[in-house]
Structures are given as C-alpha cells and as structure tokens.
C-alpha cells in the first residue's frame, strides 16, 4: 500500500526537521522530568539499597527513613532471640556537623554500621577497606562529596564534634539528593561522634567505648531464616521488642519515597514540568499536522470526491502522527540517556530512565501525537469534496 502519510511527511524536509525537533524537545522534557522524579525518589531511600536485610526494626514513631527516634542497643540482642531471625545487626543514622578549614561547617549524615557485618555494605568501595573503619574515628566518604567536604582523599583529616577524623575509605556514587553527604563509620565511632559536643578537637582522644545496652541506635537490621514468612516475623518482632515498628525493606523504601513524593512539592513540580512538555509537544505536532493537512487539502478533497471514507483519510493523518512520534521519540530518548549518563558522572544527579519510564514516555509520545492529529482530522472532516472543482 502506498504510504501517503510517509511521503507527505518527508516531502517538506525542513518542516519535518522542525517538527521532529519539537517532538524531541517534548520527549526530552517529559523524560528528564520523569527521570529526575524517579532518581529523586530512588535517591531518598538510597541507604536501603546498601542493605541485604529483610526487615528493618525502628522506633514506633518512625515517619520515614531519615525521620525517626532512636531505640536502645539492647533491642539488637532481643531481636536475635526472636524465632525466625537468622541474623541481626545495628545501624545508626543521624545528622551531624562536619567542620573543616577555618570555621567552615557542612551538614553530614553519619551512618554507623558493623564493618564486619553482612547486612549493610555500602558499595562500591573504591579505595581503602571497611575493616579500617574499626580504627578510632576512622571514616569513609563518597568521592562525589570530596569537594563539598573539602577532603583531598585517603588520609585527609577533618573534625566531627570534638574529634579529628581520618578518611580511610572512599565509596563511589552513594549520594542522595535529599540527604546531606553520608559519612560511614563503625557503630562505636558513630556513637562517639554523635555524643560529642561541638568543641575544639581533643588532643589525645580516648578510644570510643563499646556500645552498651542503653546506648542508642536507629535501626536493627534483620535477616530472616530461609522460607520465613516476613509478615509473621514482623509481628513477632513487634511483640517481642517493646515500642518498635518492623517494616520489610521494600515497605520502608516505599514509605520513604512516598513521603518525599507527596509530602514535598517535588513530585508535583517535576510532574508539572512533564505536563508542560506534553503540552508543548502536542501544540508543536498539532501545528505541523494541521498545516500539513491544509497544504494537502486539495488532495484530501480529491480522495473524498473519489469516494474515500473519512477513515481512510484519518488513517493517513494518524499514520503521519505515528511516524512523527517514533522518529521524534528515538533521538529524544537517546539524548536523554546521554544527558542522564553525563549528570550521573559529573554531578551525581541521577536521572533514572528505566524500561518502565522509556515505555511510558513512548506511550505518552504516541498519545501526544495522536491527540494532536485531532485538529487536523477535524479540518478534513469538515472538508467539502466539491473543493476539487474549484480551480487552483
């Protein structure tokens, strides 16, 4: 079958290129907004990605990953005694202040964990080793935060509270858009940092003490025994441990992502940007299709005079719209993937474009172009075939 749509489309190349640029722009805008929203929500629960735990036990006041009250360290031992628990480890996360240079400060989030443990391992580690975090006041930071924290690399020092820290390990790409830079350390070091007043560095600091049952931690990470029913284990943990809430890792991630998406304006703003992209794309495609149909009105009138059904002509216009959608989507998406890779590498801002987003944006692009075709279709519907008998 002769593709009148495709031939019409490529007949006027400059106009075709302008149309495709418009669609590319719309695809880019929608994809980047969606990618940023995905990256943002994923980033908000980034710490859970470093864990292989099945269940996170926290204070029953927990709102989301970064907003909760501490629980006593003894909950760890209590959790280990619950039937169905194979392994349990403590985790501390709390905000603090990083001091560097002369009177310079920066917000940080201290993450204390068991460097020999198995349930929490921030990856990838690109320099140093986790074992060195057991050294007093040893820390690990991410390479993307080196500049922010004014650290040159391994062996550099700075201050948290009244303690001088040693950078003994460096991770890569563990940075959250919604959180301060992560400072990873051992549980003992974390407790020492968080209990230390902001003061001049102690010249000969004592070795951080071991955690006591009454020491404060943030989470107990639990690994269930194989084939254990997690919902039942959660209930057993909540019964056995006073004043706690138990969530599966996915539940905690969802809770945190929902909070950032809904309780802040970020989801709305990025969604609005995507809608603007769709509107821009629809207008651009609509204009191009409308003017293309106007230019070929006599030919469409001829088809009508010859006895073509309206649907035959609608198919031509819709096919033209689909070609525009596909040929605008492919380079638009390629561009977004390139931009996403660049922002992740250069700025650690994740524009997360997964298969679902890619397919979703394609569907939106097709819908956008098909919707834009409605204007052109209306023009053809109103077209009187007698137009063919008017001299040109």
């Amino acid at each position, binding site marked *: *079958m*002769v593709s*009148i749509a495709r*031939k*019409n489309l*490529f*007949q006027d190349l400059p106009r075709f290129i302008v149309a495709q640029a418009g669609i590319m722009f719309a695809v880019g805008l929608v994809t980047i907004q969606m990618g940023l929203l995905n990256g943002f929500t994923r980033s908000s629960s980034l710490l859970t990605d470093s864990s292989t735990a099945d269940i996170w036990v926290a204070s029953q006041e927990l709102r989301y990953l970064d907003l909760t009250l501490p629980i006593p360290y003894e909950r760890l031992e209590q959790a280990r005694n619950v039937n169905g628990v194979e392994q349990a480890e403590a985790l501390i996360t709390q905000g603090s202040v990083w001091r560097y240079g002369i009177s310079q400060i920066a917000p940080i989030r201290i993450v204390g964990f068991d460097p020999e443990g198995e349930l929490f391992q921030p990856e990838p580690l690109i320099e140093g080793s986790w074992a060195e975090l057991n050294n007093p006041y040893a820390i690990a930071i991410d390479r993307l935060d080196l500049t922010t924290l004014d650290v040159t690399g391994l062996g550099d020092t700075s201050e948290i509270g009244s303690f001088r820290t040693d950078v003994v390990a460096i991770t890569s790409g563990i940075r959250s858009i919604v959180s301060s830079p992560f400072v990873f350390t051992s549980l003992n070091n974390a407790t020492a940092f968080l209990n230390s007043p902001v003061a001049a560095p102690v010249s000969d600091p004592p070795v951080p003490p071991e955690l006591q049952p009454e020491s404060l931690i943030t989470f107990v990470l639990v690994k269930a025994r194989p084939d254990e029913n997690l919902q039942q284990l959660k209930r057993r943990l909540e019964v056995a441990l006073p004043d706690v809430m138990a969530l599966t890792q996915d539940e905690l991630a969802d809770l945190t992502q929902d909070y950032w998406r809904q309780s802040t304006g970020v989801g709305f703003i990025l969604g609005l940007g995507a809608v603007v992209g769709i509107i821009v794309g629809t207008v651009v495609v609509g204009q191009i299709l409308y003017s293309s149909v106007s230019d*070929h009105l*006599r*030919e469409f*009138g*001829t*088809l*009508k*005079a*010859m*006895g*073509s*059904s309206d649907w*035959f002509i609608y198919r031509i216009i819709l096919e033209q719209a689909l070609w525009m959608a596909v040929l605008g989507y492919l380079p638009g998406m390629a561009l977004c993937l390139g931009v996403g890779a660049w922002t992740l590498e250069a700025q650690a801002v994740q524009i997360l474009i997964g298969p679902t987003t890619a397919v979703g944006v394609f569907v939106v692009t097709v819908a956008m172009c098909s919707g834009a075709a409605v204007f052109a279709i209306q023009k053809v519907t109103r077209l009187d*075939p*007698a137009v*063919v*008998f008017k*001299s*040109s």
Partner: protein
Amino acid sequence: MPFPFMTDIQTDIAAPNVQYAISAERVEMVFGSGDQAFKALKGIDLKILTGDIQLLMGPSGSGKTTLLSILGGILTPSGGSVSLLGQEITGLSRPKLAKFRLNHIGFIFQGFNLFPALTAAENVEAALNLKRVYGREARQEAWRLLEQVGLADKGDNLPQDLSGGQKQRVAIARSLAGKPRLLLADEPTAALDSQRGRIIIELLRKLAKEECCTVLMVTHDPRIIDLADRVVYVEDGMILPEAPSSFTHLV
C-alpha cells in the same frame, strides 16, 4: 479478462446495464437562503446514453460545474432527482454516495489534483488502494494504466517533473483505476495548450470506448466538440435547446 478485484469493490448498490447512464429530472440547486439565496440550477432535465461522450458547455457561472458535482454525487441537489447507472442517488446517505462514487465513477480535474509527494505510478496505485486493491496487484495495474495513457516510462517521476499534459494523463490513468462505468471530467484541457488538449481528449475518448465508459465533460473548449457524441449547453442554470450563436460562431 475482468479485473480480479472488481468483485471486491461491488456494493449493495446495483449498477445494471441501462439505456441511460445518467438521468436527471428537474434538478435544482439553491445556494444560501432568504434574501441571499442564489438559484444556480433551475430545473435541469438531462439524459445521457450509456457509452456516450457528452460535453457540458457554457459560459463561466452558468452552473456547469455545479451540475457536474450533482451528477457525480458530490453535491446533493436542492430539488429534483438524479439516477446514475439505473440507481437513484438523490436519497442516498453521504457514506453510501461515497461508496457509489468509489465503485462506479472516475474523476478528472482541471488542476490534476495529483499527490505531489507520490510518483505517477504511486498516484494511480493510491487510487487502487482506495478501492482495496493492494500490493503487487495494485502496482502492476497502476503501471498497466500508465502504459495505456502512454506514460510507461514516466511512472517513477514525481508530478513536479511532468508536463501539464503528462500530469493530466496520470490523472486519466488514476480515474480509470478500478474500471469505473462513469467518467466525469471538469475542464480537463483548461491547463493545456490546444494541441495537447486535443491529444488528451482523443486519448480519453479512445480509452472510454475501450473500457465502455460513459463520459461527461465540462469544458469551455469548442475545439474538442467534434470528439464528443453529444453536447449540451448550459446558461443561467438551464439547458439551452440549441447551441447559442456565440458558440456556433466559435466552432
């Protein structure tokens, strides 16, 4: 050998062999309403024999093209009745009229109205696609029709690369797609010089006779009168009983 696709494009509307291919009775056409109403056709009676080549002549604004549009089932008359190939079409719905045109009428236009983005062969093939003939069958038939109009070597050319006469030949080939029983032509020679115009009409006459088509042609051109079987003259929305002296003088 009959076209294999002819059976595919038959509709519920029968097209039997009849004495008159076109029969119009008291056809009226009024444009506008109230004080602005303009009566373009004032009770036209016309019968065209099957297989005839008939010219519809008259000055500009006489109502020729309006009459052609009505006889082609494109415009619905304000009054009177029209029967094509034995089928009364005045009461038919728009979709049924479109189907009738698709299956039985070929059109040739003054401005050619070819798709500029399609080659000559593709323009003919598109008309066949419209009649649900697709693929290789449509391509072969398109080239056969182009060969019939003497353009076998121009099938791959875009309309912009063809002369006016060649474009009109493509339009004729397109109008013959699907073997219509009626050919309606609106000023087919208007954009051509007299020599090319005559060649086109001679070709049209030859093909129409070969394909057993009835041809109704609106024209201003008195130099092709001798190629027609019959001529009717329209003036002020009415058919004149005989050729006006101005036309006789021109001929």
